[in-house]
Structures are given as C-alpha cells and as structure tokens.
C-alpha cells in the first residue's frame, strides 16, 4: 500500500486516484468487500498504459503482497504462484534451472495476474501465442466469496472470460504456469536494417524460422510514409552459462522523479533514431547477447516513463488483419506523419495464427503496430481517434492494455465476443475503462 495518488498507470491518465485501497495479503483469506458501497478492481504493478487498471472513486485491491511462490517442479517445468508475483521474480527462480517463460512482454515488471488479465503477448507470438495459452489453471475469487479453480476443462466460461478479462471477472489468486526449457541464458540475434515497409513484410515472411521477431521503426524520419527501421530476430542459444542466482538485469539507473516538461523533444529523439538506425556497420549483423538486454531493453532505465514529464505518454497499439496489413499499416503511419504528432517509438510485428481462448484477447492474425506519443492534449487524442477509425474500417482491433480513450462503439467492433464476456463480469468489479466502453 502506498499513498493513494501513486496508484497510476504507466502512461497518461486524467485524475484517477481511488477512494480507498484495500491490501490483499493472504491467499487463504476471504475478500472483505461484500459490504463496500463501491466497486473494486485489482491493482498490481500498474504497467498498463491507460485506465484499464484504474477505478477512480472506487476501491483498488492492492495485490502487491500476494507475491508468494507456491511450488516449482524443476523436472517438469511447472510453476504455481500467487498472482502478485512478477515475471522478473519468476525468471530469477527458473532461469538457473534451465526454464523460461514461454511468453514475455517488453518488461519483466508485470504481475502474473496482470499478464493473464491482459493476455499479454511477446516477440514470439507467431510461435507461442499469448501468455494465457500457457496457463494451466488459476483460482478466481469472486465478490460473493466463491472460489473457482478455472481451466480449459473446468469452469471454462470463467477461464475464457478471465484471460484478457482486465481484472473484471474477479480476483486471480494464484496460477499454474507451463514453462519452456532453454539451452542457455543467451539469445543469438540477427539485426537487419530495412528501408521500406515492403522490405519489412518481405523479412517478416521468414518469421516462422525464428523464435523471436520484431521491428523497430523510425517514425521521425523525413521521408513519408515512414518505413525504415531495424528488424530483429533471434533464438535461444547455448551461449551464456545459466546464472547461479538472480539473473535478471536490474535497472542501472532510475528516474527518481518526473522531468519538467519533456526531455524527449523531436530533435533529440530524431537524432537518437538516426544513431540507432545506423548503429551497425553492415546491413545485417549477428550477435549473441544476454537475454535480459534482448527482452527488456527499456527496463535498463527504471521509471523511463518519467522522461516524458508529468503527463507521461500514450501508447497506441493496434492490429490490422492479413488482407489489409500492408495498406493498413501504411495508412496508419501516413496519418501519424501528417498529424504532426511526434511518435517517439514505433514497433511493428506480425502476429501468428495461434488464437487464445480469451474472449477479450487482443492478438489475432495480422500486423501489430505499437506507437508511443508524448501526451499533448486534445491533438494527441484526436489523432488516436482517427487511427481508431482506420482500424475499425480495416476490421482490426486496438489493445485495451494500452488504451485510455477508445469509445464503446469501437470497442464493440474490436471485440465481437464482448457480450459473452460482459455476462461473466463480477457485479462488484469495475474499472474506468469498462465504464467508458460500456456507456457510449
């Protein structure tokens, strides 16, 4: 538990402090929420970018103390832990035994509960699908006091609603995860410069041969539509020895407070982008790197969102289906370029065909684009609304974990199973995001 004002998401969110915070400490104890006059929502690491983790005026269930491991079988690669355990803590325990998480996002500082509730994905979606696809079972605690052990074979309706369910179906108490074996703690990485979107798609056609693939785009380059960037693909390698103890990279530097205004201005980022694009001498470079640097480059700077200043940033992540991949991505990037809103980080990847059981699961076949913008007020929001329209027209979707403004109309187009999901929402659980998309 911390001062109320510190329960914020990673990015921009308007005034959003909860009325109260209730700590959840022991998995065996009931939730004392039945008599509360307000709704509740679980809150762990606060790494969602928008308001899917907020419940202003209501109560937040702080699950940071629900962070115990329950059992680990290093022979079979099965792990059971409470939902507040972070992926970082899991890696610290399992990597020395030669195991890894099958799906990892861009940061290790998210909780297992958050990973399930957002059905997160990583650079290997085309091979491994989403986080929820590697969850064997979990326990869900509802406001009426009932506990459900959910799996694909037991209480499957709650299982499918909770994966990607943004914490709205109840509190995930513990989960059992299937790990994957790795030969070593290194990644054999190939880094290829490309100059156009067509080149990106040509490179991405070979995704199936690699475990991890992703592309970084330079959106501040003068040429329109922006399409140059660096394609990265890699596989686990037997290189570095498995570390004995805590393996994961700790932030070497952390921003203790928000910078005034934003240190990230267009010229500075444009210069960084240029340097990053040209960082390697040859077009294609192969290296072996430690996994922490490959998976979590941004974790090297703690609280990096503070670089954006008090208003932080907004991230927009969408997916456009295979038929509209090329034109859709091009249209999105052109719209961004023409709006004048500076996009400081852009990541592009193609999702694979594996579909999660989660009713509100975001990843689906197509090209996914993630864009970081400093929040500049209504001009930023207008741009994102325009991007929504492009995505709706293309038949794609926008990722709720990054969102702070999608309309109910768009939401219903992005997630056709939303009504089946709504029937499973716990009546006492709610979030700012859910109220917004079910009211308009």
């Amino acid at each position, binding site marked *: *538990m*911390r*001062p*109320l004002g510190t329960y914020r998401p990673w990015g921009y969110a308007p005034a959003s402090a909860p009325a109260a915070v209730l*700590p959840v*400490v*022991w*998995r*065996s104890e009931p939730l004392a929420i039945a008599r509360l006059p307000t709704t509740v929502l679980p809150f762990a690491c606060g790494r969602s970018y928008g308001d899917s983790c907020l419940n202003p005026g209501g109560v937040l269930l702080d699950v940071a*103390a629900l962070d*115990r*491991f*329950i*059992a*680990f079988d290093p022979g079979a690669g099965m792990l059971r*832990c409470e939902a507040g355990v972070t992926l970082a803590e899991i890696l610290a*325990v399992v990597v020395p035994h030669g195991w890894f998480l099958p799906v990892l996002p861009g940061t290790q500082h998210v909780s297992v509960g958050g990973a399930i509730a957002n059905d997160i994905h990583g650079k290997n979606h085309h091979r491994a699908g989403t986080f929820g696809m590697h969850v064997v079972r979990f326990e869900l605690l509802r406001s009426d006091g009932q506990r459900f052990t959910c799996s694909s074979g037991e209480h499957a309706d709650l299982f499918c609603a909770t994966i990607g369910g943004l914490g709205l179906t109840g509190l995930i108490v513990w989960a059992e995860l299937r790990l994957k074996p790795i030969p070593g703690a290194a990644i054999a990485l190939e880094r290829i410069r490309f100059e156009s979107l067509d080149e990106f798609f040509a490179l991405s056609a070979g995704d199936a041969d690699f475990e991890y693939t992703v592309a970084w785009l330079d959106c501040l380059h003068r040429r329109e539509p922006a399409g140059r960037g660096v394609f990265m693909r890699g596989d686990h390698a037997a290189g570095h020895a498995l570390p004995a*103890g*805590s393996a994961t990279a700790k932030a070497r530097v952390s921003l203790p407070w928000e910078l005034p205004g934003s240190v990230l201005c267009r010229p500075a980022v444009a210069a960084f982008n240029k340097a990053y694009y040209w960082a390697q001498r040859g077009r294609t470079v192969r290296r072996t790197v430690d996994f922490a640097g490959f998976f979590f480059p941004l974790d090297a700077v703690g609280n990096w969102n503070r670089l954006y200043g008090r208003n932080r940033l907004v991230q927009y992540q969408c997916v456009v289906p295979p038929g509209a991949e090329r034109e859709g991505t091009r249209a999105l990037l052109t719209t961004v370029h023409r709006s004048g809103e500076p996009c400081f980080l852009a990541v592009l990847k193609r999702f694979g065909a594996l579909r999660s059981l989660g009713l509100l699961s975001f990843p689906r076949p197509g090209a996914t684009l993630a864009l970081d913008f400093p929040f500049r007020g209504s001009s930023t929001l207008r741009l994102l609304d325009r991007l929504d329209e492009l995505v709706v027209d293309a038949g794609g979707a926008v990722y709720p974990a990054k969102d702070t403004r999608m309309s109910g109309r768009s939401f219903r187009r992005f997630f056709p199973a939303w009504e089946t999901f709504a029937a499973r929402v716990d009546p006492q659980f709610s979030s700012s995001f859910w109220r917004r998309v079910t009211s308009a």
Partner: protein
Amino acid sequence: MLIVGATSAIAREAARSFAEEGAQLFLTGRDEEKLAAVADDLRVRGATAVATARLDLTHLASHEGMLAEAVRWLERLDVVLIAPGLLPDQRACQKSVADTLRALEVNFTGTVALLTLLANRLEEQGSGCIAVITSVAGDRGRPSNYVYGSAKGGLHVFLEGLRARLYRSGVAVVEIKPGFVDTPMTAHLPKTPLFASSRRVGRAVYRAIKQRRHIVYVPGFWRLVLGGVRLLPESVFKRLRL
C-alpha cells in the same frame, strides 16, 4: 536459522534474502496456514529446507518446547530473528489496563521471556546471532503511541545489556529500528512518503545481520531524526503533539 514471527511482513522479506542463499529455516508464527504459505514461498526461492511450528509469544510455557524442537531440527542456532509486533490502539490502551498489559505482553514480556532462554542456549553454544526488530518509537515516549513505544524502548535497554553480556561468549546481538513501514500492521494509517516498504526494511534486516551491526535505523535518516528528537528538552517536547 530460526525466525520467530515469520508471518510478519518484515520477517517474510528478510527470510527471502536468507532463502536465496540456501539457508535452512525454522519458522514460527500464530497461524499455521499462513506459515505454510510462507514456507512454500521460501522453498521455491532457494531455502534448502523449511520447517514450521505454531508459537504464540504470549504463551510463555510453550517457548522451551519450541526452542528444543528448533534446535533438534536445525542442529545449531546460527541466527535467530525475532519480529514481535502488535501495534495497539493507543486510545483504547489509555482507557483499559487489560489492553495496555496485553500490548506489553506481546511486544515486551513475551519477547524477553524467549530471549532469556535463547541467550542461555547461545551462550552455551559459544556462537550465533540474535536479531530483534524494535522501533524508533522506543527512542522517546510520544503521546501518540507510548504504550507501544515503552515496550520497544524497554526491549532496547534489555538488548543493550544482553549484547554486552553475550559479547564475551562470541554471540552477537543486532537491533533493527524501523521507522514507518508499510505492512498490514499499519494498514489503517494513511500512507505518507515517510513510509518504507517492507521489502526495503526486510533487506536491511538481512544486511544488518550479515554485517553483525549493533543498532541499525531503517531507513538511515531516522537516526538523525531521532537524534534530534532525543535532544529536545522535556519542557519543549511535552508541548509538541508528536
């Protein structure tokens, strides 16, 4: 390593650091279900072996039995960490002798009774370390929490004497004084930036024990704060509403 009060937030966090080094841990607490949850966690984090036993510090008659079981299982007592802690309702204690005495029983008498037995065992063993978590509240009695403060203050003096006595036998006595800590014990208090996380305090406890420090304030700035508070003359202090 024996940890008394192992289900408390600070002790749990300190225990994790010891587990990561592969320690053998004997845990006591009042609730067996919670103890089991803590034990499971420590095993996964690297503890070589973990055993648990139910113990209520205020049941003095049960102390000897628990110690005997711990020594049998651990084979020797290297480190003993005692985390006694019940934050009483100061106002309620002012109105009730029973409440006041209960608070003193948990925070002072029970701990002292256990320390008496422990001191003798470790003196005989000729080695070891006793670590006790007290509080900055014990540095000077404040109107807002002097019942709690007096227990912790009394414990402080007891530990000072114990340290000097056991020094001759090669046994170290470590006292850790946290300031405000964010734990279930303080869940009802509004959180200010002065609160430290139980993780941070737990790690500090671990370091203090490894380094065999004497008295450690966590976070360190409290040493200065309390140094200043202790210097205030009573004529001034009694007027402040601390």
